[in-house]
């Protein structure tokens, strides 16, 4: 479970102080699929960075799986990112010099798995996203949709509790976007909690819950997707 209470994030430069998040409160339960929407500069990415432990916050309380994130040092945050969080980035962020197999291998090495276990997880997850046959290919040899699938395989390889997606379909055409979203829904149905930042309203509606961020605050809470309601019904 992810709990944020009154999180503030202030970016301070020599002359300017920017309040990116103001008393930001959110609870994400296990198995949720939450989409976070809002206009540019609303604080979506700052929220995602803090939720993903990529960035620290100025004050407030943040519990991830019951652990107080504010008390973790840099190594502790790295460990928690590796063990509990998977990331999907808008630009895929694959390492261009490594083939698909090695790309998925990266977080597994940081986890310290042995070669046999890493091989099993890499093959299993590339299989899961339908790219097992192309594991020796370089990212540049794949389409955008396929690259995002590899990124999803990499994110899932460590069995994370949370999958954080930053505009996961932002660089994809509509067909590829649908495919990626369907995959994310399948992953969510298998029990992984997903938080997805997007400014695509249609995409956001595919999530179980949608929250809107404006001026660094959660402006609307618990907008339950009608599609989901239908699905649940």
């Amino acid at each position, binding site marked *: 479970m992810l709990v944020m209470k009154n999180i503030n994030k202030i970016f301070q430069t020599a002359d300017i102080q920017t309040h990116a998040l103001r008393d930001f409160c959110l609870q994400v339960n296990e198995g949720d699929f939450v989409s976070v929407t809002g206009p540019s500069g609303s604080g979506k990415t700052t929220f995602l960075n803090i939720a993903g432990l*990529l960035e620290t916050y100025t004050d407030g309380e943040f519990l991830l799986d019951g652990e107080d994130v504010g008390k973790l040092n840099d190594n502790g945050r790295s460990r928690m990112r590796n063990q509990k969080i998977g990331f999907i980035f808008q630009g895929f962020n694959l390492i261009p010099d490594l083939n698909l197999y090695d790309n998925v291998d*990266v977080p597994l090495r940081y986890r310290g798995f042995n070669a046999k276990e890493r091989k099993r997880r890499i093959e299993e997850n590339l299989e899961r996203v339908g790219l097992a046959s192309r594991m020796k290919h370089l990212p540049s040899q794949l389409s955008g949709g396929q690259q995002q699938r590899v990124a999803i395989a*990499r994110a899932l390889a460590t069995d994370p509790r949370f999958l954080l997606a930053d505009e996961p379909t932002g660089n994809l055409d509509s067909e590829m976007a649908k495919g990626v979203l369907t995959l994310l829904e399948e992953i969510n149905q298998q029990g992984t909690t997903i938080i997805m930042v997007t400014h695509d309203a249609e995409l956001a509606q595919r999530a179980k819950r949608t929250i809107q961020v404006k001026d660094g605050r959660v402006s609307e809470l618990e907008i339950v997707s009608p599609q989901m309601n239908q699905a649940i019904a």
Partner: protein
Amino acid sequence: MLETGLILRALARNKIGALLIALQIALTMTIMVNAIFMIQDRQQQMQRDSGLDEANTFYLTNTVFGQDYNIQAHLQTDLHMIRNTPGVIDAIQINAVPLSSSGWSMALQHEPGEDKDAVGSAIYMVDEHAINSMGLELIAGINFTQEDIELRKDGQSTWPAKTIITKAFAENLYPDDWQSAVGKTVYISQTQPMQIIGIVKALQAPWNGWNGVERSMLVPFHRESKGSYYFIRTEEGRRDALMPIIEKALAESDKERIIRRVTTVEDTRKRSYRQHNATNKTLTTVVITLTLITGFGIVGLAIFSINRRTKQIGTRRALGATKRQIMSYFMMENFIISAIGNVIGCIGAVGLNMWLVSTFNLSPISFELITFGVVALFIVGQLAVLYPARKAAMIAPATATRTI
């Protein structure tokens, strides 16, 4: 966990930059190892024992210009005066000074005849005071006696019947048993017999670059020549004070000659090896400069590589890499590049050394020196990449989500 395999595969797809640095390391290794080898070789040459008591000896030139000058009488008077100066241990007239770059050489052979093999040697014309005056160590046989000393006129082609040679010369003449040289008859000027009566431990020739520099012989001659050296040995610590005293005494005792170039043997050694020293300084500068250039090259490439991969590093951090793991990545990457460079460098160093050995008759490079070069360049590489690696480790994980 070390990412050696991933680094190797990534490097294989980005060969140019890494290869250039590896080649730079290889070139540095090749030049550095051979330059150090040449420095060591010169250093060893400079540290060779001349056989002399260098700290307490000096010499001067005595040039006569007077007409009807009785050289023999003045020589005896001069030597008597010098030898009786308080603080002087002994003094001789000599035709040349070791390491002075100017001297005489002759050759000795086992059998008389023009077509017989002969071994070259520096020749010093001295009297029975030579061993004491030069601080030599007689290790076999006997010294000359006063009766052995002959007067040699300029242009004279006959030689005395006795000689004392160095151990190195004896080893050359009698490789199986150098001590057996004592009492043996050898031939000078192809036909003139000469008996070896003694062996001194060491006495270098005047020419430090000659490969027979350790081969010298003493012959019992006083020269009746208008130009000669007086070679003087003093008690410990009194040399510098006695040099002007003796110079003045000699100059005042006889106005028909000039006393010049009062010089210590230590100064002669310095002058003799001035070129060696200059070469060593140049080579040292080359080694340091090359090493620094290589170090800066590594820093430059690493910083360029890190700037190019900022987002990638942020992504690695986002995927769970600690700062230490990011640092290790770049240190390991540099280690691999250095290893490739060192392997090529070892081949280059040995190849260049083989050429030097065949061209300049040097001895082969030692394994220890190559090991030193490898270790030194690994250390330089790791130190050079330390700052860029730290810089990489400081890249924030949030960089992964930035779109620029």
